[in-house]
């Protein structure tokens, strides 16, 4: 039996691979957007919500005739939250499928890998839901834009909240718990930086780093209780927040300590998962809230999403929704989706009215960092069953002005030096 026959298999497999271009050959003029959202695992919900919201925005725009005669079209590939696989898909989007925009990404690690491809091929990458500040500071590149807040902005708002709180209810000690990876570490570092920047006096009494997706927090909880902090800052996301709160609640942690979770704590998934189990009086925030601001645009967005999917959106959805509108606005200004350099110019400083903008404010993209500048609202959990299955929603809002939350000019240099 000759072995070389098996090389036909390689050849065949390669031919199959090479002759499988994925692009849809549409006759009409199309703005092609290549998205990379995870659809499986822990972040799957964010991916699903993002794709639904993006599709919703696209239908809204296309039903009004599209942009300058162009229809929008979204293709999503499950990124599996794996950077190396995502790089491969991003290359396919750009060189094979001739996409005009790269879009999406939940994990910051995937975001950092994809922004590199965007830089190499000079294709615009619209970031909708990854939080790492690096992307718009020290890893900044001209073809990257982010339409949701980063952790720095959340932490700046958090620091301002704590500063105000200190004047009403003098607190002194603070402890931190967050997942043991970049996202968790960045938040704590940025919070302390901002507390110092705003001149808040405090004493850190404990730092805890459970691994991401850890199932058990009991030893952390009892150790935190022993530290007796006035404030416990949390940097979890998703299911980890749920598990931590469920395990800590019977120990009475939330009676002794103020639970403060300014980046992803106020995400709707927490309210929807926990129902009545969610304790009252936790201080949380997120990048978008279903019940704030009380504007027509936000109400309409939330209702439409609910009608479409049968569930209320997590904040990831609004990022994707915003991203599609940003693309549409930019193409409208330029007239076509092919002139990348002109699109970059159009996106810089772009003003865009979003569901999360309160009355009298319009989000805009900072031309210097390509980071969207938005208002941040921090709230406290209170009984509210208007968004089932949630039984608790945020209320007693404190609003922080967008401009106060930006990193100072020297921040990027400071980061680079480290």
């Amino acid at each position, binding site marked *: 039996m000759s072995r070389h026959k098996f090389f036909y298999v390689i050849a065949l497999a390669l031919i199959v691979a090479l002759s499988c271009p994925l692009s849809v050959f549409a006759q009409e003029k199309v703005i092609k957007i290549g998205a990379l959202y995870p659809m499986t695992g822990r972040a799957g919900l964010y991916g699903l919500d993002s794709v639904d919201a993006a599709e919703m925005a696209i239908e809204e725009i296309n039903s009004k005739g599209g942009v300058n005669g162009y229809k929008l079209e979204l293709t999503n590939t499950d990124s599996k939250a794996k950077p*190396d696989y995502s790089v491969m*898909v991003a290359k396919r989007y750009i060189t094979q499928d001739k996409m005009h925009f790269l879009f999406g990404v939940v994990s910051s690690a995937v975001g950092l*890998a994809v922004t*590199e491809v965007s830089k190499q091929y000079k294709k615009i990458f619209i970031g909708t839901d990854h939080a790492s500040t690096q992307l718009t500071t020290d890893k900044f590149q001209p073809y990257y834009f982010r339409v949701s807040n980063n952790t720095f902005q959340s932490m700046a708002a958090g620091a301002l909240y704590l500063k105000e709180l200190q004047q009403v209810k003098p607190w002194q000690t603070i402890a931190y718990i967050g997942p043991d990876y970049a996202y968790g570490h960045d938040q704590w570092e940025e919070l302390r930086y901002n507390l110092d920047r705003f001149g808040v006096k405090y004493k850190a009494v404990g730092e805890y780093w459970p691994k991401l997706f850890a199932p058990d927090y009991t030893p952390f909880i009892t150790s935190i209780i022993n530290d007796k902090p006035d404030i416990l800052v949390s940097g979890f996301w998703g299911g980890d927040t749920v598990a931590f709160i469920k395990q800590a609640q019977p120990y009475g942690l939330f009676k002794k300590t103020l639970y403060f979770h300014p980046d992803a704590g106020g995400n709707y998934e927490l309210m929807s998962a926990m129902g009545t189990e969610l304790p009252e009086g936790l201080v949380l925030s997120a990048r978008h809230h279903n019940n704030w601001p009380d504007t027509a645009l936000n109400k309409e967005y939330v209702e439409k999403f609910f009608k479409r999917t049968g569930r209320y959106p997590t904040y990831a959805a609004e990022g994707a929704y915003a991203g599609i509108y940003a693309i549409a606005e930019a193409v409208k200004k330029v007239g076509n989706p092919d002139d990348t350099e002109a699109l970059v110019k159009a996106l810089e400083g772009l003003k865009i009215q979003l569901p999360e903008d309160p009355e009298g404010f319009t989000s805009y993209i900072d031309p210097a960092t390509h980071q969207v500048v938005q208002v941040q609202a921090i709230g406290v959990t209170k009984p509210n069953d208007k968004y089932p299955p949630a039984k608790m929603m945020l209320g007693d809002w404190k609003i922080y002005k967008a401009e106060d939350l930006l990193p100072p000019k020297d921040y990027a240099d400071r980061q680079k030096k480290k």
Partner: protein
Amino acid sequence: MNQSSGAREIILLGLFLLVFGSVPFIKQSDYHLMLANHVLIWGMFAVAFNMLFGVTGMLSFGQALYYGLGAYSVGLVVKNYGSAMFLPALGLGLVLTIVISILVGLLVIRLSGVYFTVLTLAFGQLAWQITFRWYRFTGGDDGIQGIMPSGLLENHTVYYYFTLALVVVSIWFLWRVANSPMGLVLRCIRQNPERVRFLGRRVRRNQLRIYVISSFFAALAGGLMAGVTNSIHPDMFYWTSSGEVILMAVLGGIGQFFGPFIGATVIIVIQDVVGARTEYWSLIIGIIMMIMVLGMPKGLVGEIRGLMARYAAGKVNRG
């Protein structure tokens, strides 16, 4: 794995070079080049892994340790000293791998069967956790981006041929090992280690040797991959990377020298094609794996060969 005549090997080599050498000419886009690059690198990784598993019977679940080590050596050196250091960094990774694989190898080869498997897994996971956790040095979960090879290699096509050349040389080397007296001893170890020991062959020494050789090429794969994706991530150390290479080997056929290479090709193509078309890729890949494991115990290559042999035999018998 039968001994082959020289002529057949040359035909094989020629076909291989023809298929992979022509990719830059027939590709439609950079993406195809990248896909072919992935096939080459994973193919080599899988063939090297199979020297351990298929040939010697040592199922390592921790080869990701060396894959990651090769990639991170390149990534860290290039990040800190610039892309001119790309090739020296690749070499550094290989040297480090030899040292570390000897040290780890001395510990793991004391065990056999599933205990060997689990201990290799433990070392791989330990390396992953350290890379993940040692934020300041490795960049942690963010990984390292912007790893560009320098000079001529910066060109994607040149880099592709560079990979092709290294892969061909590596596979040729592994082929020679598999068909050397040492290869014979390794196959005997797989079947009956006690007897090998009675025959005066040193089982442990040969096991260590093949462990180091296999790890060496895993590291080469990692280093080359860093230049293809330009960004690396601690996931490369994670057990799923080790799992993937096992899957490739079994799918292609662990009893065949080139089986794992075919397995790698098929897996990469399937992942890409299925992944691009449905979010339920894990269901589909799971079912394909199930069918393969249950219906094709000898792997793709082994089964096809078996079919052909039966066909040929049938022709002879029935006249």
